[in-house]
């Protein structure tokens, strides 16, 4: 099976300043890598590097056999707290429609298929019930679901999700977990950054980050007490 994401001895950072080094992993279609760490530990930097928004400092990285950012229609990125959410007067459904822009480019007209994909994404995330309301008038959880629907509307083969459960209640978090499971069943590879250790339960692999890779491997291996203590200064409750 072809590797979806390949990283070898990868160093990442901003403006030449290294945040995390020596990252090595391979992900196959349908696999889930969960990134766990404190704020500033390098989770978002790794996701932005995979999305092609930050250039790697050194090492190798490829997504679907190409360099990051080379195939925007096949790789979708959900940023942490999109900045405009509190002010944008546009309807939620229009924000979801933007998920098709990577396929449409500047000038292509949207087709019936695009509209159906947008409708399905809204249905799956529950955005349909508030589709006509302005993004700024929605609650934090509803805004997060809208952005998630936008990412799903991309119909990408790789999803890079930066804290998609932030601002969601228990039911909302479970819905996101279900959506990720469904996507994986369809062969979509997912990289998920989170603070919630419970998000790692169904992961193929977990990477613990603290300005370096503390541990990487299956959840039962990477979430051992000594690694968690090193990463957070405490262990998970048994």
């Amino acid at each position: 099976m072809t590797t979806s994401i390949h990283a070898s001895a990868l160093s990442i950072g901003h403006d030449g300043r290294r945040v995390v080094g020596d990252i090595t992993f391979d992900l196959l279609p349908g696999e889930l890598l969960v990134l766990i760490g404190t704020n500033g530990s390098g989770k978002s930097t790794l996701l932005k590097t995979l999305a092609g928004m930050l250039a790697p400092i050194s090492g190798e990285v490829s997504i679907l056999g190409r360099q990051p950012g080379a195939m925007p229609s096949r790789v979708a990125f959900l940023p942490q707290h999109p900045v405009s959410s509190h002010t944008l007067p546009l309807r939620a459904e229009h924000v979801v429609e933007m998920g098709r822009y990577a396929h449409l480019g500047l000038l292509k007209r949207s087709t019936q298929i695009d509209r159906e994909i947008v409708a399905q994404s809204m249905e799956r995330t529950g955005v349909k019930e508030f589709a006509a309301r302005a993004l700024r008038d929605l609650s934090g959880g509803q805004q997060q679901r809208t952005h998630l629907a936008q990412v799903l509307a991309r119909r990408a083969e790789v999803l890079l999700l930066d804290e998609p459960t932030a601002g969601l209640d228990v039911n909302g978090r479970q819905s996101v977990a279900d959506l990720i499971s469904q996507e994986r069943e369809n062969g979509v590879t997912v990289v998920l950054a989170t603070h919630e250790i419970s998000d790692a339960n169904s992961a193929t692999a977990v990477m613990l980050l603290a300005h370096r890779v503390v541990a990487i491997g299956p959840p039962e291996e990477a979430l051992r007490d000594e690694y968690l203590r090193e990463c957070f200064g405490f262990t998970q409750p048994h």
Partner: protein
Amino acid sequence: MLQPFLNNEFMRHALYAGVLVSLICAVAGTFVVLRGLAFVGDALAHGVLPGIATALLLGVSGVIGAAAGAAVMMMGVNLVTRKLRLSGDTSVGLLFVGMLALGVMITSRSKSFTGDLTRILFGELLGVRWSQLAWQAAAFVFVGAVAWVCRRPFLLLCVDEGLTESSGFSVKRYHAIMLGLVAVTVVASFQIVGTLLVLGMLIAPSATGALISRRLFTMMVVAAISGSAATYIGLLISYHADLAAGASIVLSAVVIFVVVAAGREVRAALNRRHRNGQDNGQEDELPHQHAHVHI
């Protein structure tokens, strides 16, 4: 209401020019409001001053000087933000005051500049020529066409830069194009409403559009209507009360925004009261239904 425009050619020209300023500002202003570029717009509007002053000193067209000033301002903002790692606001603020001071210094070189400076700052709405109208119309077509072609990356920029980049659109490129449109708008409008007041026409009508619209195109249409209405009202006030035309138009645009905002709040309050009334009504009905069950 129509007499001043029917009887005076300068009033008709002023109306045409004001409507054209409203149209072009509606397109650029919508993105300025959605992307939060009001301060950049303000800086661009003032940043053109030294360019215009230098052009007048050299006997060149003020429009060319304004374009050069706007280009220097845009490049300066990009350079300072990237190289010195300062926030966008700080970079813009530094260049804004720097360019404004430079403009005032150049204009202070000659006493004959006093009249020119007033014209640059406050516009010359009541002395519009056909050539200026033609230039404005061409600028509107250009800004409208570029905004239509770039509408998708522009909208993504208004949501999040990360989304823009990951959707295959370069943030640097489309942000620069957006700033370029604002610069063209400023250059095309300053002769009419002046560099001090052009920001008002960029912001106030588009902010009115943002209050009551949920689509990009509708927002632009509302902004254009609101700006045109402000032009008409402002010119009438200016004619009858002998007040500065540009300032009357911009103040009218701001008043329209305040009225629409107040109307929106009143409507929201009435809706809330109506909903509360319905909820209370339902609560009243419940015991009644409950009593029936017991009977």
